C-alpha cells in the first residue's frame, strides 16, 4: 500500500494510455482465436467451426512455403540492417555540415521520397530501370555494363527492392538520429578540442556513442518487422519472372485471400508473424540488458 501511495502519480500518468490500449488492442485480441477456426463471416467468432491447427498447416504445407518464408526473411533482414545503417551514417555526414541553411535543405530533400506511395514509385522504377533504354541502363551502358534486367532477374530484383526501399526511407529514418544528436552536450566537444582530439576522434568517441542507444531502440523495434518484407513495394514491383526470389508471405496471403476470402488463414499468418517477432524482441531486449546494461523499454 505504501508503494501505491508513493507511486500513484505514475499509475495515473499511464492510465489514459492503458484505457486506449485495452479498448483498441487487448479486447480485440480475442480475435486471435480466429487463427484456429474455419472462420465464416455469417457465423462470427463465436459460431465458426474450430479446426485446430489447419490454418497453420496450410501455410506450411504448400509446395512453395519454405521458398516464400525464406524470401521474406532475406528481404526483411537486409532491409532492417540497411534501414538502420543508412540513416545512422547519413546523420553522421549531415552532422559535419556547418552551414545551417544547406543542412536544412538537404534534410528536407531526402525526406521527400517517404511521401510517395509505391504505386507511384513502382511505375517510375519500372521506367528508369527498364532494360530497354531505361535511364540507369543507359548510364551503365556508357561504362560498358549491362543491360541489366533489374526487375526481371531474381537476385537483381532483391537488390533493387532493398536499395529502393533504403533510398525511400533513409531520409525519414535520419530524423530520429538528428534528434539524438541534439542531446549532446557541446562542452564535451569543447573539452575534446582542448585535448587536441581530431574530428574523427570526436566523432568516434562523442558523436557515435550518443547515437547508439537510439540505434539499439530503433533496431530492436524494427525486429517486429522481421517477417514483413514490405507488401506495397513487392506487390507493385514483382512479376512472374521473380516469383521464386520475390514472392513474400504478405503477397501470398493477399492472393490467397482474394481467391478464398478466408479470414481465419490471414489471422493465423498474422499470429505466426507476431510470435516470431515477440521472441526476437524479447531476446534482443535481454541481450541489450545483459551486455550493455541498457533497458530498451
Amino acid at each position, binding site marked *: 500500500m505504501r508503494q501505491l501511495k508513493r507511486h500513484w502519480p505514475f499509475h495515473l500518468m499511464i492510465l489514459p494510455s492503458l484505457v486506449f490500449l485495452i479498448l483498441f488492442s487487448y479486447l480485440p485480441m480475442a480475435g*486471435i482465436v480466429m487463427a484456429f477456426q474455419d472462420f465464416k463471416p455469417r457465423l462470427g467468432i463465436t459460431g465458426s467451426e474450430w479446426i485446430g491447427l489447419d490454418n497453420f498447416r496450410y501455410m506450411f504445407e504448400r509446395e512453395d512455403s519454405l521458398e516464400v518464408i525464406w524470401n521474406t526473411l532475406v528481404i526483411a533482414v537486409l532491409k532492417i540492417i540497411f534501414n538502420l545503417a543508412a540513416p545512422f551514417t547519413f546523420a553522421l555526414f549531415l552532422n559535419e555540415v556547418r552551414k545551417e541553411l544547406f543542412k536544412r535543405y538537404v534534410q528536407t530533400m531526402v525526406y521527400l521520397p517517404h511521401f510517395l506511395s509505391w504505386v507511384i514509385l513502382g511505375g517510375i522504377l519500372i521506367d528508369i530501370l527498364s532494360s530497354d533504354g531505361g535511364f540507369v541502363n543507359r548510364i551503365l551502358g556508357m561504362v560498358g555494363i549491362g543491360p541489366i534486367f533489374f526487375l526481371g532477374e531474381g537476385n537483381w530484383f532483391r537488390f533493387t527492392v532493398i536499395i529502393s526501399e533504403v533510398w525511400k526511407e533513409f531520409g525519414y529514418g535520419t530524423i530520429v538520429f538528428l534528434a539524438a544528436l541534439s542531446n549532446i552536450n557541446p562542452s564535451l566537444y569543447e573539452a575534446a578540442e582542448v585535448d587536441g582530439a581530431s574530428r574523427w576522434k570526436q566523432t568516434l568517441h562523442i558523436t557515435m556513442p550518443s547515437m547508439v542507444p537510439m540505434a539499439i531502440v530503433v533496431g530492436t523495434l524494427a525486429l517486429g518487422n522481421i517477417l514483413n518484407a514490405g507488401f506495397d513495394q513487392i506487390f507493385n514491383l514483382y512479376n512472374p519472372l521473380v516469383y521464386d526470389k520475390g514472392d513474400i508471405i504478405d503477397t501470398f496471403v493477399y492472393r490467397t485471400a482474394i481467391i478464398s476470402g478466408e479470414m481465419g488463414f490471414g489471422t493465423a499468418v498474422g499470429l505466426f508473424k507476431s510470435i516470431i517477432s515477440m521472441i526476437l524482441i524479447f531476446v534482443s531486449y535481454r541481450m541489450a540488458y545483459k551486455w550493455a546494461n541498457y533497458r530498451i523499454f
Partner: protein
Amino acid sequence: MYHKTLSYRIFSILNNTGLLFISLLCIIPLVHVLAISFSAKSAADANIVNLWPVDFTLEAYRKTIDNPIFLNSIWISIMRTSIGTALTLLLAFMAAYPLSRESTSFKARSYYSWIFVFAMVFNGGLVPFYMMIQNLNLMGSFWALVLPGAVNIYLTILMMNFFRGIPKELEEAAMIDGAGHFRVLFTIFLPVSKPAIATLSLFSIVFHWNSWFDGLLYTEGVHQYPLATFLQTVIISRDMSSMSLDPVSLALISQKTVSAAQIFIGALPVLIIYPFLQKFFVKGLVVGSVKE
C-alpha cells in the same frame, strides 16, 4: 580548431557535394510527378513526360480545385492530424515519464512496458477491431479516425528514451523544492523536451496524414474520407477485368495528370511542416539548462 585544417576542408567539400548529389536523387520522382501534373493528358498517357512538362497546362489543377470531395478530404485530414497528434503526444508524454523511471524506484514499470510492447506486436485482426468500433458507436464518426490510433506505442518508447537522457539533477533539484511528479513533468521535462516533442510530432503528423485504411472502413462514404484515403482510391491500379468497361469511364479513371496534381497538393502540407519543425532541433538544449 579542427574545421580549419586542410584535410577537414577537403572532406567538407566532398561531403557537401555528396550530400547535394544525394538530395537531388531524392527529389527526382517528385519533380517527375510535378511535371506530369502540368502536362497535357495525351502526353501523360503516352508516358513521354520526364522532368519537364510537355504541352504545359493548368487543367489538372483546375479540375482538382473544382472537386469538392478533394477539398473536403484535405479539411478532414487537417482536423484528424492536428487533433490526433495532440492526443498522441499528450498520452505518450505522460506515459513515458513513469516508464522512464528506474526499475528500482518504480517496480511496476516493467509490467507496464511489456504491456505496451505486447500490444505493439500482437493484434487480433480486422474483425474484432471492426466490432469494437461498432460497439463503441464510432462507425462513421470522425473519432473513429483519431481514437483507435491515439496511443502510439513506438512513439511512447522513443519518448521514454529521450526522457532517460535528461540529467537526474534537474529533477532532483525540483523535488527538493517540493515539486510533485506532475509538476516535474510539466514544468521541468516539458521545456527541455522540445527537440523530442518536435521529432515525435513530426512522426505523428506523418502517421496521421498518411493513414488511409481506417478512412476506407470506418467511415460511411466518400464525404468522410481523409485525404490519404481519397488519394488511395484515385491512384491505385484496379483490377478492371470484370467491371463493365467503356471508354467514357476509362477516360475518367485514367486521369494521370489530375492524380499527379492531387498527389502533389496532398503532400505539400507535410513537406512544408518539416523545415518549420527543424528549428526545434537545437543542439544542447537539454544539457544547457543544467546549472553546474
